[in-house]
């Protein structure tokens, strides 16, 4: 088993996934069902991550910009 060759390594990782989740033992239609369910869940997860992270990242960035963009204004407000 050649660890250096990436496609072989990825195939080996896929085989480990198959063994752990027992999809190695399933009939082809069960495998299709199982993988599509898994991919659907993964897709949902990625989409939720994208939306949430993007939202939080953009709001954090805006907050950071407001701190950096008007330093004098903030300092004056604190002093006053």
């Amino acid at each position, binding site marked *: *088993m050649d660890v250096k060759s990436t496609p072989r390594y990825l195939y080996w990782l896929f085989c480990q996934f198959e*063994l*752990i*989740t*027992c*999809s*190695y*033992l*399933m009939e082809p239609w069960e495998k299709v069902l*199982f993988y599509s369910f898994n991919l659907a869940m993964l897709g949902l997860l990625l989409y939720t991550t994208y939306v949430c992270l993007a939202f939080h990242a953009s709001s954090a960035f805006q907050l950071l910009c407001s701190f950096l963009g008007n330093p004098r204004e903030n300092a004056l407000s604190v002093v006053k």
Partner: protein
Amino acid sequence: INHIVHNGGLYKRPFNEAFEETPMLVAVLTYVGYGVLTLFGYLRDFMRQWKIEKCQNATEREEQKDFVPLYQDFENFYNRNLYMRIRDSWNRPICSVPGAKVDMMERVSHDYNWTFTYTGRVIKDIINMGSYNYLGFAQKTGACQEAAAKVLSQYGAGVCSTRQEMGNLDKHEELEKLVARFLGVESAMAYGMGFATNSMNIPALVGKGCLILSDELNHASLVLGARLSGATIRIFKHNNMQSLEKLLKDAIVHGQPRTRRPWKKILILVEGIYSMEGSIVRLPEVIALKKKYKSYLYLDEAHSIGALGPSGRGVVDYFGLNPEDVDVMMGTFTKSFGAAGGYIGGKKELIDYLRTYSHSAAYATSMSPPVVEQIITSVKCIMGEDGTTIGRARVQQLAENTRYFRRRLKEMGFIIYGNEDSPVVPLMLYMPAKIGAFGREMLKRNIGVVVVGFPATPIIESRARFCLSAAHTKEMLDTALKEINEVGDLLQLKYSRRRLVPLLDRPFDETTYEETED
């Protein structure tokens, strides 16, 4: 490390037994695997019930659908949905003598293991790591085979009677005297079937009003015999002498449950080698306890007779103890002697009683003469009475093979259960898909192994069980080890965390959580 010797120096040699704990990640992933399979099992059951899929397993008839359901319990669910998927690893048909190498008929399944068809090809010379052939007496050539062939031509194959009626041949008498001499007991009796020896003789020895203290992991034959006898059964933790002593103390102090009368007899049931764990019983401590509390000991040496001890006389010889301390020595001829049947050895009064009152003697057909001759020849070979040193060489070869194989497997990083000196080597697999994958991959590489899952083992602790043999040469073991190494890397089976476990003289009780002493 506080290495306090708790057992008062009863052991003449170090007792190295280890059961490495299941790694947490592996346990979690095993449950994940079982969870996925259970969900798919429910889906398939739903589809079978609503006729979307053809139902190929046994179900009740239409008229019986309103009765109490027969196939709804967990065992049947497991059978339909999990066992069927990996069924091709079991019941493989072999077509040669099960020696060190065996021939197997190839079979394929086109409907996912519901039915099998034979391709007609025979896979030759598969290294046999599954047969209980500890001393290599499963042969089709050699002194044993010639003697058995001669007796076959003299006596025939069938006996056509029970021991008590017309089935007591002079061969049986000769065998029993020989077995008694081999074990070092006064007298012995032989039966046609090893399972029946246990299940039919324990009811003859104990009855209601007696107490049986049985190890947690005893074989089904012992459990069946104990239940058939009608005695009260109490279980002590596996190989745990503190648990056994506590039960003995409670039994002596409190007596029978309602009436508080003393127990008529207390019988301790243990095995020499436990075949699923590979552990050896702590016999010196059991005998010390037995003497202290005046109870009786029934030792089932099915796997250990012939396989342990410097002269092959079993676990009593291994620990260097007196055979007269064990009240009932039982064993089988199936494993190390290459025959079939069982024996019970002990004092003359006991064996004479069993000759009259045992169910097996009264109702079961006696042993077939060629089988008896095979046992006689193999026992004489082990004792050295046939004039050669083959027997002694085999016993030593088995011990060397055991030590070598176990050491190499541990070095590779697998989790191996059991005692250092036991020829039964369980290799932990844990995950259900790996059970099927291991069996298939090893067969592809021409090695036959036995994999075990639920219900023979706890549900997450499935394992592959190797049985070593004196017939295995070092080259065969090296080939096997190389393939096991390869399959272990392929399937990621090297779970061991390699913590050197110090020798624990006291086994687990409720206060130790880890094998390391703090």
